[in-house]
Structures are given as C-alpha cells and as structure tokens.
C-alpha cells in the first residue's frame, strides 16, 4: 500500500500543479485551454512531449523485451527514434508556422484547410479509433498495477477508476498548459527513477561491465542479432519494429498539439531534437535493466518477462525506493493517457463539432472538450471492464493507423497536386488494411501484434504495418494523380505554399 500512497500523492500534487499552471497568467480563452496560448518554453515542451509518448510499455514492456531478446530491443524505442529530429522538423515546420498564423488548435485543422471538410471529419475519427485501444491498454495496465501493489486490497475494477479520475481532473482543470506541466513533473520523476534503478541493478554485480560479462557468459544469444535460428532480431523484424514505431510517432496528436503550443521557433526545434536523444538514454537503460535482470531472476517466460522491471527494483532497492521506481512506470502510463486523451478531445471539439456548428464560440468549445475528456475516460473504463477483450493486442494498431496519415500530411505541405480524393482514399485504405490484418491476426491464431509487427512470409517478409503503409502511400499518389484538385485544394495553395514558408 506504500506504493499506492506515493502514487496518489504524486497525482494529487499534479492536480494542484495543473490548476496553478493554467491559472497563472491565463485569460481562459480557447487558445489558452487548447494550445496553452502558444506560450510553452522548451524545457516544458521537451518533457511534456517525452512523457506523453512514453507509456508503461517503455518501462515494463521494453525491459521485458531486453530480458527475453537482448540488445536487439535497441531498435524498438531508442536509436530508431533519433530520426524524429528531422522527420518532425520537415513534416511539422509548416504545422508550427501555419498553426500559429491560423490559430489552429487541433490535428484536423491542417487537413481541413488543405483538403476540405471531408478530411477534417475523417482525421479525428481515425485518431479516435486508433487511440481508444491504446488508452484502454494504459487504463487496464494501471488497474492491474494497483491490484498487484495493494496485494489485492484494491480490486481491478476499482483500480480502473484511478487513472481516468486524475486525468480528467488534470485536463478539465488545466487544459494544455496544465497537462504540459503535469507531464513535465511526472516525466522528470520517471526519468530519475529509471536512472536510480539502472545504477542499483548494475551495482549489484560490481558495475556495468561485470554485470554484462556475467550475462554474456550465460546468455550469449542476448548479444546477437538473428538468434533463435535467425528469427529473433532478423533484419526484417528489426526494420518492421523500428519503422513502425518511428513513423507512427510522427503522426500522433501530441506533436501537433506541442507544435501549436511552442512559444518560439527555438523551443520547437529543441523539443523535436531532444526527444530522440533522451529516448536513447532513458530507454537504453530500461533495456539494460531487463538484460541485467537475467542475473537477478531466472525463468521468466513470455509476458511474465514484463515483470522484470518491478522484480529488479524489489531486489536491488530498499522497499521505499522500489516503490518509487514502480510509481515511475505508473506515471509514464498516466502521462500517455493525458497526451492522447487531450489530443482527441481537441480534435472532437475543434474539428467535428465546429463542422456541425461553425458559429460555436470559444467557451462552448472549451466546455465541449471538457465533456469529451470525461466521455473518453468513461468509454475507456467501460471497455476495460470487459476482461476478455485483448486490449494489449488491439493497442498495437494505434501506430499503424496513425502512420498512414503521413501521406496526406506530406501532400498538404509539399505536393501541390495532392487532392482530397487521394487523401481520403489513402487514409481509408491504410486504416482498412491495418484493421484487416488485425482481425486476420486475431482470428487466424497468429496474433494481432505478430501480424502487424513481425515479418510474415506471405507478405514478402514485411509486416502488416509496412504493407498497409506502402499501399496507403501508393493509393494516395495514384488517386491524387487520377483526380483534379477542387476549389478548396486550389485556394489552399496560396497559404500552404506561401513564399515565406520556403
């Protein structure tokens, strides 16, 4: 129960921070609520973006992957994310500049201005479909953690309310500014705890070198690529994971919302540059905690390996510090919920509702966004309540679905010939193919995660994600070339290809 006390304390403190951050200097306009009045400095931007992306998977899942499969996990959430520095810059430079000039407050805004209302309506729906399983997986994970940490005193069903209640409080009270500050505080907290755990685990065997020597002696396969008869960390497997995680990250709502919220160009650039570098350092440590975990705990198989993070903390740190380390993973899950839920609420209010009621005022939009946050949290609790839904499997779809929106985004900013038909067709085909592979994996016994992320022989050794991505791109290009730009696309060129943006 000590851990629960610490976590509740952190969450309550975060509610205060969220509210204080929003109240401080805020005029409570829609701009303040949705994009923090475009006033966030780079320190807050960096940690807020980092925390909103790194979920409990970055702690438990990745250390479990290190434990089971070794150093190849470096290509899942570390070195493969460094390209985001330039990918985000090239794809979101115009999001940052046009967003500020046009006062955009949602992910659908650039698509709406460039391609018209069809895409403006599709984007929030696609993002919502992709992110609900992802959010539910976090809510479920937190409930499971609470049940385990309280040794069954707090049942799973009661634990389901914990994260949604606090997230709703942060976001309803504080909006983007509050969310960014909460993410920053919690992001720093879990980063520090990863450092503490890493050094504690390595110190157990006399330092990093001796620890790795022991593991290498007993498990040399963890230091190899293509172990297990060439299947574990084969090149197609590595490329599939690396590309899926990186390209999916480009298109999540978080980079849009953070680009709109940046106070300065320097802040925007520092944020996108620092993200990959911090991931390399922090996530490498969690992978190595998992690898070193082989010296502490033996015999963890399959998903059981995901427990290595908590077990390593329990064996190498005093009880109170181990509790803090596990609380770090807990806050990582919370901040991901904050980032994704807020992005969706902004999309629904500013894109979907604005389409239905164009004359809606700022206060009405803010009110609606608050209701949406509460609604999204309720939906997550209801879905998580049904224990047989394979949410963790379904959550993997988020990256694949988000990634297919990269083509219309690229077309909006860089290809004058892009049409709304191409954008809509490419997005729908890409989403449809991801869903098809998901169902195929679930019903066919392969598993959704394997079908979408592991290389499949019948797909020329590519995974379902990459095939959907390539087909979505081909459809976008072909349909755009086969159709003519309408008045909306033609008019938008004046703004999207303005000489000042060159």
């Amino acid at each position, binding site marked *: 129960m000590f851990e629960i006390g610490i976590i509740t304390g952190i969450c309550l403190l975060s509610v205060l921070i969220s509210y204080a951050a929003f109240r401080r200097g805020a005029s409570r306009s829609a701009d303040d609520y949705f994009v923090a009045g475009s006033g966030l400095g780079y320190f807050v931007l960096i940690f807020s973006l980092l925390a909103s992306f790194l979920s409990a998977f970055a702690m438990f899942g990745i250390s479990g992957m290190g434990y089971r499969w070794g150093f190849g996990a470096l290509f899942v959430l570390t070195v493969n994310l460094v390209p985001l520095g330039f990918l985000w810059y090239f794809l979101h430079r115009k999001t940052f500049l046009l967003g500020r000039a046009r006062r955009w407050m949602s992910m659908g805004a650039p698509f709406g201005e460039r391609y018209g209302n069809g895409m403006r309506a599709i984007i929030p729906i696609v993002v919502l479909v992709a992110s609900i399983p992802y959010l539910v997986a976090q809510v479920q994970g937190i409930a499971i953690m609470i049940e385990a940490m309280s040794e069954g005193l707090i049942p799973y069903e009661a634990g389901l309310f914990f994260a949604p209640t606090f997230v709703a409080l942060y976001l309803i009270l504080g909006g983007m500014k509050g969310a960014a500050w909460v993410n920053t505080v919690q992001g720093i907290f879990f980063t520090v705890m990863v450092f503490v755990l890493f050094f504690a685990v390595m110190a157990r065997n006399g330092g990093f070198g001796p620890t790795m020597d022991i593991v290498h002696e007993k498990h040399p396969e963890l230091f190899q690529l293509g172990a297990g008869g060439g299947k574990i960390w084969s*090149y197609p497997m590595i490329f599939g994971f690396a590309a899926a995680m990186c390209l999916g990250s480009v298109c999540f709502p978080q980079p849009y919302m953070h680009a709109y919220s940046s106070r300065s160009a320097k802040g925007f650039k520092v944020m996108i540059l620092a993200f990959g570098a911090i991931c390399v350092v922090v996530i490498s440590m969690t992978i190595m905690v998992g690898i070193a975990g082989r010296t502490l705990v033996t015999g963890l198989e399959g998903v059981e390996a995901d427990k290595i993070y908590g077990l390593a903390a329990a064996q190498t740190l005093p009880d109170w510090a181990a509790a803090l380390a596990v609380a770090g993973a807990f806050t990582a899950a919370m901040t991901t919920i904050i980032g994704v839920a807020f992005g969706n609420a902004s999309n629904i209010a500013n894109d979907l509702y604005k389409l239905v009621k164009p004359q809606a005022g700022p206060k009405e939009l803010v009110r609606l966004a608050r209701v949406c946050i509460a609604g999204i949290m309720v939906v997550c609790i209801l879905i998580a309540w049904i224990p047989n839904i394979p949410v963790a499997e379904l959550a993997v779809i988020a990256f694949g679905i988000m990634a297919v929106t990269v083509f219309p985004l690229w077309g909006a900013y860089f290809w004058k010939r892009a049409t709304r038909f191409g954008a809509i067709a490419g997005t729908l085909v890409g989403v449809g193919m991801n869903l098809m592979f998901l169902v195929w994996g679930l019903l066919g016994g392969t598993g959704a995660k394997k079908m979408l992320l592991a290389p499949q022989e019948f797909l020329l050794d590519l995974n379902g994600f990459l095939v959907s991505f390539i087909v979505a791109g081909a459809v976008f290009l072909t349909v755009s070339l086969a159709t003519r730009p309408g008045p909306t696309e033609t008019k938008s060129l004046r703004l999207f290809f303005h000489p*000042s943006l060159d």
Partner: protein
Amino acid sequence: MNPKKGTHSKRAFVVAFIVLTSLCWCPWAYGTVTGRILSIPTWAVLAYVFAAALFLLEWVFLFFTGLAVTDEDLSGIISELDAAGTDNVTAAKEAE
C-alpha cells in the same frame, strides 16, 4: 544565404539524414560484426554511433546552418501568413 547554395546544402543534409536513418532503422552491413566494446555488442555500439552522428547532424542543421526557421524570421513569416490567410478567407467568401 544564397538560395541556390541553400537548396544544395538542404539536399545534402536530406541525403545524409536518409542514409543515417536507414542505419538507425536496421543494422544493414554492420549487424554481422561480432565482438564486444565496453561490454556491449559491437553492432550495438555502431548503432549508437550512427544515432549520435544523426543527432549531431540534426543539431547542426536546426541551429547552425541558417536553413531552419529561426525566431528572428518568425514574426515576419507569421504576419505574411496572417495576411495570406485573410486573403484566402475573403476569396472563399467572394467565391461563395
């Protein structure tokens, strides 16, 4: 900066970014290197080296080349886009 020179530099950066990205997304060629450096696999060290090189290149591109947007340019760009946006809205209303 000379616009032509700027375009060439930008292209050179993009090519370098793509090459390094492909090395960060898959250990083509260097994945077969065996042995260990500093207790971790040599191929992992090489992956870190490529990631570090990409990070440094991104840093140089974003902050030291004049090719990326800066705060000095920001207000000018925003006012021009503001004006273009207003024209766009007016044109759309006229078209209606």
